[in-house]
């Protein structure tokens, strides 16, 4: 009876081997996923002093770290996509960060600040390209109640959405300090990064836009 039900290939390699492979698959996938999630924790991010000393400390003064309700966003909530495909791409790109950790590219605050403009622009570009996907995991336009927002926010938000802007167009430097920005005030930041407010409307929202940021943008 059992022999009739079993396909030939199962018979040839044996029932035990089939179950063995299945179990091994579960263990392998579970292990892979566990390791992946282990690198997706804030404690992992700030185990590198590059992150702990610079961006993490700045972030501790911001609303995404401490606020009235105690809801928090951790590093990966904003810097790693939640969807499996984009997450894999981002994780593979992040291998470049390991290289620069070894090279010590940003291993002092001075070196970090010298690179801050480039790093920030990478991250802005990435968020612009995926329509601020990580922001919108929590902050959805569709569910915003403008009557609960401040006068200024309630006026600006609908207009920005009509113009096709995305979160990062206006909300730069909300979790970390900005690099030197050329605002044409005095000579201090002449020739520094020019900040954009999304004057050019973004392309229509893409569901699975590929993050384009350079990996060291974390």
């Amino acid at each position, binding site marked *: 009876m059992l022999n009739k039900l079993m396909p030939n290939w199962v018979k040839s390699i044996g029932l035990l081997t089939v179950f063995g492979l299945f179990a091994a698959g579960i263990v392998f996938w579970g292990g892979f996923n566990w390791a992946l999630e282990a690198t997706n924790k804030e404690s992992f991010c700030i185990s590198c002093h590059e992150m702990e000393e610079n961006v993490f400390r700045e972030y501790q*003064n*911001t*609303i995404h770290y401490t606020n009235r309700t105690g809801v928090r966003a951790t590093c990966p909530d904003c810097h790693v996509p939640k969807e499996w495909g984009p997450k894999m791409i981002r994780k593979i790109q992040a291998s470049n960060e390991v290289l620069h950790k070894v090279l010590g590219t940003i291993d002092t605050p001075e070196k970090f600040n010298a690179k801050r403009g480039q790093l920030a622009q990478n991250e802005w570009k990435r968020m612009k390209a995926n329509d601020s996907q990580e922001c919108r995991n929590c902050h959805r336009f569709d569910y915003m109640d403008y009557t609960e927002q*401040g*006068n*200024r926010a309630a*006026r*600006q938000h609908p207009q920005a959405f009509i113009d096709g802007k995305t979160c990062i167009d206006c909300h730069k*430097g*909300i979790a970390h*300090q*900005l*690099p*030197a*920005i050329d*605002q*044409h*005030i*005095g000579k*201090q*930041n002449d020739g*520094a990064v020019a*900040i954009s*407010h999304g004057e050019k409307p973004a392309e229509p929202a893409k569901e699975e836009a590929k993050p384009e940021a350079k990996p060291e943008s974390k």
Partner: protein
Amino acid sequence: MKLITALALAAGVFLGGAGTACAQELVNEIGGVTIEGTSKVNMFRPEKDTDTIPRNFQKQPQLIPHSIKGYNVTQNFNKCMDCHSKERAEETGATKVAKSHYLDREDKKHSNISPRRYFCMQCHVPQYDAKPLVENTYKPAAKKGE
């Protein structure tokens, strides 16, 4: 002479006693709140966002009618000027920076504010729900023609 010594001693004892009393109460020099008891809950809160607040006297620097939490004015970036500069004011609906701010100390006009006006909050301040510690009867001088 003995009297003076005695008085000084008495004063010393008195002041010493007062000193210990102070140390026990840990009075905050501003509001009389004990330092130990000062918590975030009892701190003054920023006023809710409002429209432009009328000036109390002529040439008063405009008050900031909105929260400035997390708005940094640093060497790298001036958050205020991100909305209040003349290029940005129209889009953001913010009050434009006054023309006087474009002049440097030689009265030379710049394309943006003069660096000496960089630190906005030296003159422009946000409002908190703090009550005045002392009543005052200040009245602005009458405007021309009043």
